[in-house]
């Protein structure tokens, strides 16, 4: 599992302060374990007593206006970034011994100050930070690069999240969430799909997270459980050991929901396929199919075909609608022909 995904799973905070009991602090930001090209390269250079301060908003602020004295709508809840411009301004303030705006900034409960480009503030700034116990961090990264990396990490951590009961598989590149009551055959269908060469992302407990407001990423909820499946009669099996690393995947965007249900003779099932039904998960609309299960029906083949159909739709070919249009054209042309050929007096 990717490190930032693993960290996000540990924290799973929610935006707007609905914390799940775990606070994300400045210390946690420094400690996050990220791969090289995502690494934040952060170290604490002062104000250590404030490392327990909480980061509650996944956003940044460059305090230029505040430092120059304008404090209306100062975004004090955000992480404050000090780049080359801000550092130069601080040097100017220091040379003129003007510290009021800096003192005023520290009077707010800002989470921390981060100096990019390996810049360091002057002695006076340090002391003011220590006095108000505000953590001072430093990174070698340039401001733009640091900003984009930290925003990525924060948006992942603060993404709306929930766990669902189902199986997430990847079939022909399409992330399919299989839902249904216990015992309907979700895991067994997934097992056959894996045997046919597709991939398991998560079984039973799927962690869903809404990234960027319109993408739903699904992953296994727990690293220890990982890629295991429970099959009634067999017990818990380890898919990675049985089928290899090519049969598993750590996370996948959820692009289709397949609901398996016991065949209900009273219910009307979709016979044409032109009407698209959706399920809303964490505010994202995902296309949804209802598949009735009956002994003798090959569910994995149906799921595979659904995946291929979904791929086709993404490419712009909506087979069911095209079929309907062709039928209409044929009926029209047939009706037109019968007007000419059905009447005796035309000849």
């Amino acid at each position, binding site marked *: 599992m990717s490190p930032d995904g693993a960290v996000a799973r540990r924290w799973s905070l929610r935006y707007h302060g609905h914390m799940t009991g775990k606070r994300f602090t400045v210390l946690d930001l420094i400690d996050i374990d990220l791969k090289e090209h995502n690494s934040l390269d952060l170290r604490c250079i002062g104000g250590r007593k404030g490392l327990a301060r909480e980061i509650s908003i996944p956003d940044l602020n460059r305090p230029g206006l505040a430092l120059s004295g304008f404090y209306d709508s100062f975004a004090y809840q955000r992480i404050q970034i000090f780049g080359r411009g801000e550092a130069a301004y601080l040097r100017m303030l220091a040379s003129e011994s003007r510290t009021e705006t800096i003192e005023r900034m520290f009077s707010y409960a800002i989470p921390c100050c981060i100096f990019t480009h390996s810049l360091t503030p002057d002695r006076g700034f340090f002391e003011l930070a220590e006095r108000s116990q505000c953590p001072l961090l430093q990174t070698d990264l340039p401001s733009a690069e640091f900003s984009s990396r930290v925003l990525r990490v924060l948006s992942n951590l603060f993404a709306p999240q929930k766990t669902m*009961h189902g199986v997430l598989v990847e079939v022909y590149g399409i992330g399919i969430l299989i839902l249904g009551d216990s015992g309907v055959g979700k895991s067994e269908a997934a097992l056959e799909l894996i045997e046919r060469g597709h991939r398991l992302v998560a079984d039973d407990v799927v962690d869903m997270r809404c990234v960027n407001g319109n993408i739903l990423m699904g992953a296994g909820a*727990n690293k220890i459980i990982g890629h295991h499946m*429970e099959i009634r009669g067999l017990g818990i099996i380890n898919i990675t050991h049985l089928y290899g690393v090519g049969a598993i995947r750590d996370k996948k965007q959820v692009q289709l929901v397949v609901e398996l249900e016991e065949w209900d003779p009273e219910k009307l099932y979709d016979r044409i396929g032109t009407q698209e039904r959706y399920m809303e998960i964490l505010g994202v609309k995902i296309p949804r199919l209802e598949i009735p299960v009956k002994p003798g029906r090959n569910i994995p083949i149906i799921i595979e075909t659904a995946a291929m159909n979904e791929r086709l739709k993404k490419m712009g070919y909506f087979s069911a609608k095209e079929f309907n249009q062709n039928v209409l054209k044929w009926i029209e042309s047939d009706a037109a022909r019968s007007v000419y050929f059905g009447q005796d007096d035309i000849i």
Partner: protein
Amino acid sequence: MIEQMVKIKNRAGIHARPAALLVQTASRFKSKIFIEKETDRINGKSIMGIITLGAAYETPLKLIAEGEDEADAIDALVHLFDSKFEED
């Protein structure tokens, strides 16, 4: 729908054997059964879900049952927790 809070009395928490017992009991009933720990809600009829909860000694859990036999389901499950899953 019935909700009921329970506490784990087993020293080892809910590991494989109690989880299996829990699932077998829950699967006997027609009602939908969920178990909640803090904000995580999992399906009580799935063993992977229960193990994933990571429920340790003294952890409070919420049992939720919805269906025609919800009362019987809750009773059976509460009994399991109280009897420490037949350990000790």
